[in-house]
């Protein structure tokens, strides 16, 4: 496929929940639109009727609801087949951790009906899972905070004895709380177990500077793009509300070490804490683009665009430069929509 042909693509994107704990979908679409121009057709794939991206008509041409990941691959494939019959999708970019397993499993079937993906393997997905992260770090020479898996409230006691306070208590997929005493840790455990299931992860607290790295692996042990970002404003949910691109050879080397160790295929994000001794701890590895991914495009390395090109077989040379000192400052915006639109996506699953 030539560069010109990319403009006629129809791409499905999930993660339209541009809220205070934002999914990456809208940022991915913004980067794609910037890279591929007006001929691009974007199909939103939503889970809930109040995902703001559904109603962003300048970003999303049409949205279809899709079944929750717990409904399994058969239900998802049936729905995607229906959507494909109407829209002739060329490519899908899933943006939620929790849905990736199903999309990876379905990748060969999707390919058969003409829909490409560019995703890691199930093994790659599992190796960086929060539950396995510490062992992964030990095995591959990464600094990862010590952790303890919690399956019952009674496990909190042992975790606090081992890891002390403050203690980071994390949900299996999303959310984390910093607990300063046992009562707070148990409360966080109960809340996260109810929302995201077991295990809940108790992680050693590392004090330092929070840095995230957005990167794109080619599946052969190399990164095509790496852009590090220092968080400048952090919400009470720990999300970056503002950040700035930074240049640091140690961060680039860390991402390259990760790509080499895993042969990662697709977008990913390393969540890093740099401590007072300049040691880089990996707190989490997200197996998809982060919500701030548009900053990579703004800084000169459009990772979603590169992902599309790689999926269509284009051999890309690694980006070597980006602009350090490029800031993003997120904001909230009240969209006003007609109740009829809400009814259509709620009742018919299409808008």
């Amino acid at each position: 496929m030539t560069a010109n042909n990319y403009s006629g693509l129809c791409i499905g994107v999930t993660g339209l929940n541009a809220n205070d704990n934002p999914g990456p979908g809208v940022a991915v679409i913004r980067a794609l639109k910037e890279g591929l121009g007006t001929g691009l057709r974007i199909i939103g794939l939503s889970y809930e009727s109040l995902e703001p991206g559904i109603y962003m008509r300048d970003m999303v041409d049409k949205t279809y609801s899709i079944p929750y990941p717990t409904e399994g691959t058969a239900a998802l494939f049936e729905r995607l087949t229906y959507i494909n019959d109407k829209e002739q999708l060329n490519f899908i970019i899933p943006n939620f951790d929790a849905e990736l397993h199903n999309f990876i499993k379905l990748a060969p079937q999707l390919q058969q009906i003409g829909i490409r993906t560019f995703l890691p393997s199930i093994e790659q997905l599992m190796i960086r899972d929060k539950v396995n992260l510490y062992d992964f770090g030990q095995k591959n020479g990464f600094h990862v905070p010590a952790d303890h898996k919690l399956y019952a409230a009674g496990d909190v006691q042992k975790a606090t004895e081992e890891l002390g306070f403050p203690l980071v208590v994390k949900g299996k997929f999303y959310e984390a709380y910093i607990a300063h005493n046992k009562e707070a840790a148990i409360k966080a455990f109960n809340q996260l177990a109810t929302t995201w299931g077991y295990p809940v992860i108790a992680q050693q607290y590392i004090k330092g500077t929070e840095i995230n790295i957005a990167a794109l692996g080619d599946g052969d042990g190399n990164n095509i793009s790496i852009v590090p970002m220092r968080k400048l404003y952090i919400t009470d949910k720990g999300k970056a509300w503002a950040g700035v691109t930074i240049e640091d050879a140690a961060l680039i080397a860390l991402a390259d070490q990760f790509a080499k160790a895993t042969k990662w295929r697709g977008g990913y994000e390393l969540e890093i804490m740099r401590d007072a001794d300049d040691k880089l701890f990996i707190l989490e590895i997200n197996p998809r683009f982060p919500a701030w991914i548009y900053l990579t495009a703004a800084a000169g390395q459009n990772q979603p665009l590169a992902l599309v090109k790689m999926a269509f077989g284009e051999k890309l040379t690694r980006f070597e430069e980006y602009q350090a000192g490029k800031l993003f400052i997120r904001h909230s915006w009240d969209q006003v929509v007609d109740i009829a639109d809400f009814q259509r996506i709620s009742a018919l699953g299409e808008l």
Partner: protein
Amino acid sequence: MKLKKNIATSENGFIFNPATGDSFSGNAMASEILLAMKNGDTEAQIKQQLLQKYEVSATQLNRDWEDWIVQLKEANLLEAAIYDSK
């Protein structure tokens, strides 16, 4: 020791360290000294320029210079060795 090579400064005294993402606001004097440091002027040269331009004693200037260097070090804006006074 010198100002780190990649430190970005502006005429209005804004300083950005692209390696860490830290940014600082300095006054007009800070801006002037940073510009001289970025140009590679030595400590002695910069002090001489300041003594000629402003009504300040050498003793006071030396005291302020020490404070200035401490602030730059704390902000992680200097290369590892001591600022070259030759």
